[in-house]
């Protein structure tokens, strides 16, 4: 019983907290892949920009909550401008063009941030401090808040994609954008809004995780690898798959650290991904033919 409360329960909670935040980041990546057929290499930098814009807003206003509102909006605007100015002309080109472009954008954003804020690590203090006694253990209150907010957002996103017209249109565009165009939907505008939404999600994840992981220009690069794994494991383009895979990776990573040094766990997670892909190349819920 003591083992359960002192060892297993905190590890499971770690996994859930990290998985939920990872899910937010990966969901945006999945939507963009589903819509544009391109893995957005700049997604990690949008996550990083969320933290830096948040840092600037907190610096000006002193309010984390205001930053949580403004940073995703600002990054969404940047995302929309980027999509219109750079990605839109490439839609009819082979996916490699988009891949190279987003890779370049990642470099531009990262180095831009380095020019403005410098390369040093910055701290964002958690807006909620202290710890909460929970099931016989002590857990940082902010991390519990992080879990609650991420889960609530994932639920809202599920409702958005299943219950709203806009969400259904995005899913329809993921399935067949040309058909949607033929039906009179303004698909380019849909793409722009979806890209902006995905950028906002990444920025939100960046700012929410900033008090835990701190803020530095490379922070996106470290997270995006895991986010890619989530997308591949969940099934390329599958929204539900991404959420499931994010939790699987979060919990697996957390439990494995009980027996392996966390540095080696990253290798084990890659091993897990390879294993899943051998058995099921399309991932958990992937569409047939995407990776087969």
């Amino acid at each position, binding site marked *: 019983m003591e083992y359960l409360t*002192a060892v297993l329960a905190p590890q499971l909670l770690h996994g859930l907290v990290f998985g939920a935040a990872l899910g937010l980041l990966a969901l945006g990546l999945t939507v963009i892949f589903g819509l544009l057929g391109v893995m957005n290499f700049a997604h990690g930098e949008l996550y990083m920009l969320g933290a830096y814009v948040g840092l600037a807003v907190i610096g000006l206003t002193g309010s984390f909550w205001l930053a949580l509102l403004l940073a995703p909006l600002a990054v969404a605007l940047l995302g929309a401008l980027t999509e219109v100015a750079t990605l839109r002309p490439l839609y009819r080109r082979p996916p490699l063009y988009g891949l190279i472009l987003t890779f370049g954008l990642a470099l531009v954003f990262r180095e831009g941030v380095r020019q403005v804020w410098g390369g040093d*690590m910055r701290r964002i203090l958690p807006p909620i401090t202290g710890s909460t006694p929970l099931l016989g253990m*002590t857990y940082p209150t902010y991390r519990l808040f992080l879990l609650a907010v991420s889960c609530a957002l994932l639920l809202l996103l599920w409702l958005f994609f299943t219950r709203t017209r806009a969400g259904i249109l995005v899913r329809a565009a993921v399935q067949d954008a040309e058909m949607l165009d033929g039906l009179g939907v303004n698909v380019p505008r849909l793409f722009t809004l979806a890209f902006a939404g995905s950028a906002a999600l990444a920025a939100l994840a960046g700012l929410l995780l900033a008090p835990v992981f701190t803020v530095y220009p490379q922070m996106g690069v470290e997270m995006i690898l895991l986010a890619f794994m989530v997308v591949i494991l969940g099934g390329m383009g599958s929204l539900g798959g991404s959420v499931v895979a994010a939790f699987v990776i979060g919990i697996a990573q*957390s439990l494995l*650290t*009980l027996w392996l040094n*966390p*540095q080696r766990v990253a290798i084990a997670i890659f091993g897990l991904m390879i294993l899943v892909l051998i058995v099921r190349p399309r991932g958990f819920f992937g569409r047939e033919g995407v990776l087969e």
Partner: protein
Amino acid sequence: MRRLLALSTVVLVVVGWAGPPADAQQKVVRIGDLGSKVGVFEGYGKYQTMAMQLAVEELNARGGVLGHRIEMISEDDDTKPAPAVRKAEKLILQDGVKMLVGAVSSGATMAVMDVTKKHRVIHWNSVSCAEFMRTTKFHKYYFSNQPDSRMQANGLAKYIVDRMGKRVYIFYTDYAMGQSDARQFKTALERLGGEVVGVAGAPLDTKDFSPWFGAINQANPDVLFLAFAGTDSLRLMTQLHSFGMTKKFKLAGIDCFLLQQDLPAIAEPMEGFVQLAHFSPYNPDPNMQAFNNRFKKRFGVDANIMAGAYDAVMFWAAAVEKAKTFDADRLVPVLEGMCLDNTHIGRQCIRKEDHQVVMDMHLYQVKGGKNIPIAKVDGLQAIGEPMVGKDPLEGFTWEIKRK
């Protein structure tokens, strides 16, 4: 005659105006200050600069060294070996420093040792803890007045086994300093009858330590021994505290775990933490208080363990005055065996064989954000045998020996 007089006057005026001021006529000798000025170890690097600056100002006020005014040049090494090597080369070849203090990170210091050996420059280390500098990496121009891993382990392990608990988990920063501290501490603890119930390393500059906490909780030790430094220690302690682990386990750590200046901000997580160090402004020792008063008067803040960098400059200056030269080859024999009295930790003597300074240390316990002395550690007992060119822990294994 009038023309001659006028010409002489003109010449005198021109020479008088063009001549340098009396102060600038004094010859200059340069010394280098190399270390982390930003990033994970910036606290140590900045205080190293201040301590050296105090020494330089005091020496210059007394007329400099060997008739030369001392000029200090500071460089940031980015806490990494490669930039440290480049900056050391720059300090030696471009600026012509005659003595170099640095670096802060053990990995960077070891890399710089190759440079100081190649260019035959006196090299002082006043903060890096790894044991390899005075053993496998040792060269004759290298000196250290920082108690290394072996000295610290010998001083700490006995107190931990006797007073805190026998079952210990070792958590260390996974690079030269932490590895060295963990190796030495594991060896010393097991020799004294303690049991190491788990060992784990986290990379330098880890942002989130919580992935390691499960294994620590699983091992359920009496004492959690921490070999971290700088902002890593700050983050680690904040996170341990938020997970309730600072109350669950007794905590102990190495000399450079946190500077006194960092303690008030995390006084609550650090309460009761046992740390071995050679300086605390809250130590009533008259030597320490005397140094702290001078430091505080100059910079407006308390001194910390970087006081060693002040002594490094003083050792070098005393040797230069005695040898009447800046030549490193002629300074080395003078430095070997040299002692300085009334330093912040009393008498410091350079051991001839491995150039490690024999110095006493104290065990401190954090109470209300202050490092309060609880025991004194005799430097001679802690230093161990000289082991130049040898691995001090040959046959060492990370294996956990279950009891």
